[in-house]
């Protein structure tokens, strides 16, 4: 009996192995298949091809994985409601692997071989810069970039659906001055985003009667901040407006906490901190940290809760749906694009772009949003404060905030 089972198991596994091997060779021969998510059911019309190029592997995969998850969720949802223009959406996913060199090839495949109708993706600015030309200029395809970033991206046919410096500073900094104080310190990682964001933040701080005591740049993996912490403490700084990033940020927050900055009434601010980032630092070290983003779980609006519940059901809580990982930007981007395609009744780039220039959606994570001239999106912004490992919303923008880019 036992032998019989063993034998059957063996033969099964051999068969399974052969099947798998067959599948593998088939995939190799056909040029890949599992990355193509075909629409469920039978459709009379050819699918609309949606290219998703994001970092599923490498240091930025914490952002890329939720991005591809959200894309799949939204595309499935659109398909279950009849697709667009009577055609289903087919998602073609490419891993850009946090490697700009590789990404150009992957995106080229999307544009020249798969001939996708639109490309969504890129998390870092360096990734966007590497792939945008291949998509937009050489590839003559529409490109939608979902992440919060430093602004100044004004390439035609490239739409940015994440928050810009204006959106993250205009309501946030006055709040910080009111709820922290006038003396700011800007410790930063040394790359493009902090430099440009700080330049903008400085003008807003000064316009609101605040003053910048110091602005410093460190390598991203810097881990010795005692001199900076010392300066912050001895200058009696009220607000630390932080743009250092992982892995350096964990050490900085720890050293700042140990020096007693928050205990003495200082306010820590960091505009990319979302629910996901709370895992980087122990809750007690960032008690009172303020952030400003387009969505927090704590916004607790019915539509956002619905998305959140659906996402968690499909993908669990390991790679959560948050604003800082561009998942909200991806959601918004896909919905706005779908609206534009429906309005344009076409997939021609120029016609979709013309409709996308003023596309709006009534619902999304964090509320309604609308594309404004300059190919950026106006949206609600929320200021939240970390309290024992969770966020509490302390202020909501009065209506949608303008992105203030490319106008």
């Amino acid at each position, binding site marked *: 009996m036992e032998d019989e089972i063993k034998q059957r198991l063996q033969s099964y596994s051999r068969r399974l192995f052969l099947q798998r091997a067959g599948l*593998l060779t088939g*995939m*190799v021969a056909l*040029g*890949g*298949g*599992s*990355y193509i998510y075909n629409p469920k059911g039978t459709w009379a019309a050819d699918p609309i091809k949606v290219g998703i190029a994001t970092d*599923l*592997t*490498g240091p930025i*995969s914490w952002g890329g*994985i939720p991005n591809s998850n959200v894309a799949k969720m939204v595309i499935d949802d659109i398909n279950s409601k009849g697709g667009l223009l009577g055609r289903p959406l087919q998602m073609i*996913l*490419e*891993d850009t*692997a946090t*490697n*700009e*060199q*590789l990404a*150009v*090839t*992957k995106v*080229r*495949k999307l544009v*020249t*071989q798969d001939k996708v109708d639109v490309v969504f993706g890129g998390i*870092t*600015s*360096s990734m966007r*810069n*590497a*792939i*945008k*030309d*291949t998509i937009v*200029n*050489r590839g003559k395809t529409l490109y939608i970039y979902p992440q919060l970033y430093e602004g100044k991206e004004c*390439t035609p046919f490239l739409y940015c659906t994440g928050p810009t410096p204006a959106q993250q500073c205009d309501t946030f900094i006055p709040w910080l001055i009111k709820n922290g104080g006038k003396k700011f310190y800007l410790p930063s990682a*040394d*790359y*493009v985003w902090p*430099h440009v964001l700080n330049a903008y933040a400085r003008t807003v701080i000064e316009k609101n009667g605040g003053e910048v005591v110091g602005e410093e*740049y460190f*390598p991203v993996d810097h881990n010795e901040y005692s001199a900076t912490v010392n300066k912050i403490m001895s200058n009696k700084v009220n607000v630390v407006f932080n743009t250092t990033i992982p892995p350096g940020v964990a050490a900085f927050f720890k050293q700042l906490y140990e020096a007693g900055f928050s205990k003495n009434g200082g306010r820590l601010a960091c505009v990319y901190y979302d629910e996901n980032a709370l895992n980087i630092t122990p809750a007690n070290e960032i008690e009172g940290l303020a952030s400003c983003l387009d969505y927090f779980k704590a916004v607790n609006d019915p539509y956002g809760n619905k998305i959140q519940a659906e996402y968690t059901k499909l993908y669990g809580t390991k790679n959560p749906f948050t604003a800082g990982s561009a998942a909200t930007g991806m959601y918004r981007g896909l919905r706005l694009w779908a609206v534009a395609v429906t309005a344009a009744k076409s997939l021609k780039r120029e016609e979709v772009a013309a409709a996308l220039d003023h596309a709006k959606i009534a619902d999304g994570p964090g509320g309604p949003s609308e594309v404004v001239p300059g190919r950026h999106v106006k949206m609600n912004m929320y200021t939240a404060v970390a309290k024992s490992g969770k966020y509490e919303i302390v202020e909501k923008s009065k209506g949608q905030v303008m992105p203030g880019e490319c106008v």
Partner: protein
Amino acid sequence: MNQPVASRTKRQIIPVIELTLLVIALILPLFLQDFWVLFTTRVFILGMLALSFDLVWGYAGMMSFGQALFFGMAGYSAALLATKWSITSVFVLLPVGGAVGLVVAFLIAGIIILGKRPPNLVFVALGTLTSSYVVERLARGWSYVGGQNGIPSLPRLTAGSFELTEGPLFYYLALVLLALVYLGLRILTRSQFGLVLAGIRQQENRMAFFGYKVQNYKGFVFCLAGLIAGISGGLYAFHEGYVGPGQLGPVLSTQVVLYALFGGAGTLIGPIVGTGLVDLFSFYLSQIWETGWPIVLGLLLLVIVVFRPTGLIGFLVSDRERVGSFGRPTKAAPPTPDARHEPA
């Protein structure tokens, strides 16, 4: 004296591989879709970079982790000329790329190879690796060259009023350059000069005792490799339409080492085959297993490098052919195959 016939045929495998690949490369664009033409063009350009590494490691025995430095510096220089001064002529930018690669290689060689004491393997490896790392860090922080974001949206290369678009045209440009570089290196490495290099690789001290200025040979080869990497870097920047700090750094440098080791270092053709196969594998693997493909690729490379130190080409080519013969055949040299089989 008689050689078995099998080994005689074995000795002629490399030319067969070379010719086959050349013929395939020449007619390939007729059969390939657009994307694969671009893909293969990229393989040719990176293959040139892999050749430059093979020259320093496979022939002169210097482990250079700095090939990406020459490649990237050349790419950046050409990109700056194109964006800040609107120079797009291929006849200016490629020579500039090569020259930048050469000069940077010369400077590095001046520090780490041409010093008072002959450098050992680890010194060269770490010296080139750190140079590559330092320059990448600098490029990431320097806003004039775009910092972290690099220089996007490069214009296309031009020849007169003609624009070199990616596709078959660029493909043949890259192929011709690769073939020329390959031919040049093949002649060089099979010459008397190549014999000296092989000697240096195998037993450096003995070559020095013979009176060869070993360091000068090494320095020359290092600079030549810099020149080739530079040309390749200039070409790459304009084919991809983008340069970024990643093109300067240790990651690409290491990738090039893998290309060469995977295909088979010290054979010239091996690194080119390696470039093609590694890129093809990583492309397909990433289609099959979205989040685990780098691990599979890494294991595959590890297996080859551990169990086949001569690389994939080692499966086809005997050690004897890999090492090859040098210089012009003289009367005293081994007789031609026909003569060899004359009855004794």
